[in-house]
């Protein structure tokens, strides 16, 4: 199934005390003379929080940035859909928050599978992110005194989450997009919208460019540069139904993986507890309700199994507020993995509500009584409207129904402290890398990581690479460039020539069901083995029987999807292997064989306190990066 390779280590983090590492790294990083920066071309793929902020910042520094997104505008990147908020250790509330506490919460929340040095840096720059966003005009929620408002999120006991109603991701993304727009107008960023990266060009072992397809004309083009930055988001759509945007895909990171970049912890998939349950077979994607709702909403199920009475007819003493009962000190605000599994357990035991019993109530009746409807409207109005639009139920009158769904992937390409992958010159930022969240991501930390990487971390470490690396001039005639381009063309021809009977979507849906059933919220050796038998068959069927109409020289959305689903069919296998080899439970990875007598996830720190970094090959090669916990000592996570 896999073979063992040499251990891998992060050699970029300076060997100084934790608090000083980032300052030390910035100081030792080589600088590039401002006059020389414009001679360097840097490719940035993706325009979400990570890619948009990186492109804008690198251009401000004077680099010539070539930026790509598959959407028609950088503003549409999926970061735009994040709802709840962004964490920062500013201690504006004087409630005991600090850089160290944000670091501590994040390492613990990630179930001790992230790197201390990376997470500490994330906490350090978090305050600066808020300053930067405010300076750009991001309209965060404010109090009457004109100061910023905050709220709390799952897994923490301080109020450190800054928010813009339920549209924080949108507002932060628009901020980054506007900063990027300014640089486009200034001529420092060359934007290619509706253009998709289809391969990575590696010359002399270094990332030197990409092959891309213009989605309107179908033209295949090569773009050369001195460094390539991938900011292409997560791969949750491998499950077909997820909260990801429909276009979110794994192609860029998967093709880079096949060119030599290690893929770390692919099985760490976050299941988000507050998603609107699916309504039928037609479902194309799932919609998340912000986790912030758990601040005021109470989660419950009927005490009686298969109770079909409408919620308002179920008296108080016949309701089970199971999170408050099981986790009294965190209650409804337990971390996502805990809340998701608890909901699944209740539904599996027959207490679920709504169609098929796949749902639990998220009830605002108490909050409305306590605070009044206007206060709830002000806090969550758009979320309530969205819920009503999708379900045709009024959550001001009846409790919402929620169920867990695939949301965020903590795995991604392996990067060192400099955010550089195992291919020199290939940097990976935001959700596309694996670095900061461990096995579970706490709420309001994805926005923080995307912007930290893009605005503050990458610009410093990329300087070091460009300032310290000798790069030959290459041109489009180089063999490696021509070969890579030829392979992209061949693959597209091959896809179009299958001329089979089944639609791309039918393959994707089948893959999704397989992954959700056997590698979803809980995993077993048996189920994973079964899925691993089916995936190669499904992949073979795909290449034998997929039907793509239309040509390659025009806007062809089926061709786009087919290209991506082909990659998902490969990635899925690595994901299953990773889940199978990790004989423990942690964060979003719950192996039924490994649980405590209370049914909680049972970590095995003795054997699995490492990052699984996979190298591509005929058979995947496992390289372990041992994780050291010098400051936050691994303990059984307890939220009771």
């Amino acid at each position, binding site marked *: 199934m896999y073979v063992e390779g040499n251990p891998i280590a992060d050699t970029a983090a300076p060997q100084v005390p934790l608090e000083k590492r980032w300052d030390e790294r910035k100081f030792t990083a080589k600088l590039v003379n401002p006059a020389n920066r414009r001679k360097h071309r840097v490719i940035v793929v993706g325009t979400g929080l990570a890619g948009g902020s990186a492109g804008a910042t690198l251009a401000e520094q004077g680099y010539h940035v070539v930026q790509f997104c598959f959407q028609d505008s950088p503003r549409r990147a999926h970061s735009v859909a994040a709802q709840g908020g962004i964490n920062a250790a500013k201690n504006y509330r004087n409630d005991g928050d600090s850089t160290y506490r944000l670091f501590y919460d994040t390492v613990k929340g990630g179930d001790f599978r992230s790197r201390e040095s990376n997470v500490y840096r994330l906490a350090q720059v978090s305050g600066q992110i808020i300053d930067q966003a405010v300076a*750009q005009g991001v309209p965060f929620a404010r109090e009457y005194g004109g100061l910023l408002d905050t709220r709390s999120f799952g897994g923490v006991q301080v109020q450190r989450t800054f928010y813009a109603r339920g549209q924080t991701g949108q507002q932060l993304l628009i901020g980054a997009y506007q900063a990027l727009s300014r640089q486009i107008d200034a001529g420092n960023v060359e934007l290619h919208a509706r253009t998709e990266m289809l391969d990575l060009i590696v010359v002399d072992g270094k990332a030197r460019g990409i092959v891309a397809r213009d989605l309107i004309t179908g033209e295949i083009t090569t773009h050369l540069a001195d460094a390539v930055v991938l900011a292409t988001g997560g791969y949750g759509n491998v499950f077909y139904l997820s909260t990801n945007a429909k276009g979110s895909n794994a192609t860029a990171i998967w093709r880079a993986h096949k060119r030599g970049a290690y893929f770390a912890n692919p099985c760490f998939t976050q299941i988000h507890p507050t998603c609107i349950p699916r309504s039928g077979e037609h479902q194309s994607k799932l919609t998340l309700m912000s986790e912030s709702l758990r601040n005021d909403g109470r989660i419950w199920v009927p005490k009686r199994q298969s109770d079909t009475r409408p919620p308002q007819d179920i008296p108080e003493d016949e309701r089970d507020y199971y999170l408050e009962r099981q986790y009294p000190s965190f209650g409804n605000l337990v971390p996502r993995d805990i809340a998701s599994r608890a909901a699944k357990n209740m539904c599996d035991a027959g207490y679920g509500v709504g169609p098929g019993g796949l749902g639990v109530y998220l009830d605002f009746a108490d909050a409305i009584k306590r605070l009044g409807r206007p206060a709830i409207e002000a806090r969550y109005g758009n979320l309530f409207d969205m819920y009503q639009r999708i379900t045709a139920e009024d959550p001001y009158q009846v409790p919402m129904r929620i169920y867990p769904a695939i949301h965020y992937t903590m795995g991604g390409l392996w990067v060192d402290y400099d955010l550089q992958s195992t291919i020199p010159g290939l940097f990976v930022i935001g959700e596309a890398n694996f670095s900061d969240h461990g096995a579970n991501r706490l709420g309001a930390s994805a926005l923080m990581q995307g912007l930290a990487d893009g605005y503050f971390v990458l610009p410093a470490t990329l300087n070091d690479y460009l300032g310290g690396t000798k790069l030959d001039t290459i041109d489009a005639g180089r063999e490696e460039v021509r070969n890579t381009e030829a392979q992209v063309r061949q693959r597209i021809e091959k896809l179009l020539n299958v001329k089979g009977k089944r639609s791309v979507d039918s393959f994707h849906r089948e893959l999704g069901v397989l992954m959700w059933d056997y590698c979803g919220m809980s995993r077993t050796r048996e189920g994973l083995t079964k899925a691993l038998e089916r995936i190669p068959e499904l992949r073979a069927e795909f290449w034998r029987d997929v039907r793509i109409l239309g040509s390659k020289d025009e806007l062809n*959305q089926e061709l786009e999807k087919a290209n991506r689903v082909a990659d998902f069919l490969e990635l899925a296998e690595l994901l299953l292997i990773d889940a199978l080899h990790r004989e423990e439970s942690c964060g979003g990875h719950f192996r039924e064989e490994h649980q405590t007598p209370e049914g909680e996830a049972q970590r095995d720190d003795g054997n699995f306190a490492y990052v699984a970094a996979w190298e591509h090959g005929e058979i995947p090669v496992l390289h372990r990066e041992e994780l050291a916990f010098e400051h936050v000592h691994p303990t059984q996570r307890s939220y009771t």
Partner: protein
Amino acid sequence: MKLTVRIWRQAGPKADGKLVAYPVDDVSPDMSFLELLDVLNQDLIAAGEEPVAFDHDCREGICGSCGVVINGQAHGPERTTSCQLHLRSFSDGDTIDVEPWRAKGFPIIKDLVVDRSALDRIVQAGGYITAPTGSAPDAHATPVPKPSADLAFDNATCIGCGACVAACPNGSAMLFTAAKVTHLSLLPQGEPERAQRVLDMVDTMDDEGFGGCTNTGECVGSCPKGIPFASIATLNREFLKASRTRR
């Protein structure tokens, strides 16, 4: 439910287009409008006919990718995005017309897909606050009165879908531009570049071929995010003030 959809089919920017009727059987009122198009496309693929091209991504009403004219109305009969419109807004047996955004500023690419990059160029002309990374003062150093912050937020929620342009009889981008100008003009941070911003944005809007505003109000009626009509008055006021000092 059984529905008939009449969809604008156009192979490319220069090709002729026409409405083509397709019956769609067995759809559910809980489906979104885009899921109706998904079902139709699966049927078309099975029949060996090219599926309908349409823009969509988040399907949560926030990315602004989707947008079609449904029965003559941008985003259809409800005040929301096409992806958040559900079939329960229609009746069994209905015939539904689906067309792309129609405006001089939005050339058609294929079927229901149009080119909205002109909106990006309006933002590039000045829809930002100049704030280089890494030099920002502490966030609490710049208090913003809550009413201003709230109104700025209301305007900042524009998703750039272009429904306002498609709904306007003049094909004007006034509401889009007004939202950005109003958002930024309410905040102390962008004050020094306030006048230049509005002049540059309005100039670009004109250059991109968008029509003028005649206060028809169709834009507001079709805006899925409820950008206020008053923002257009703010844009006019900002523009007039800035024009007096134009150099």
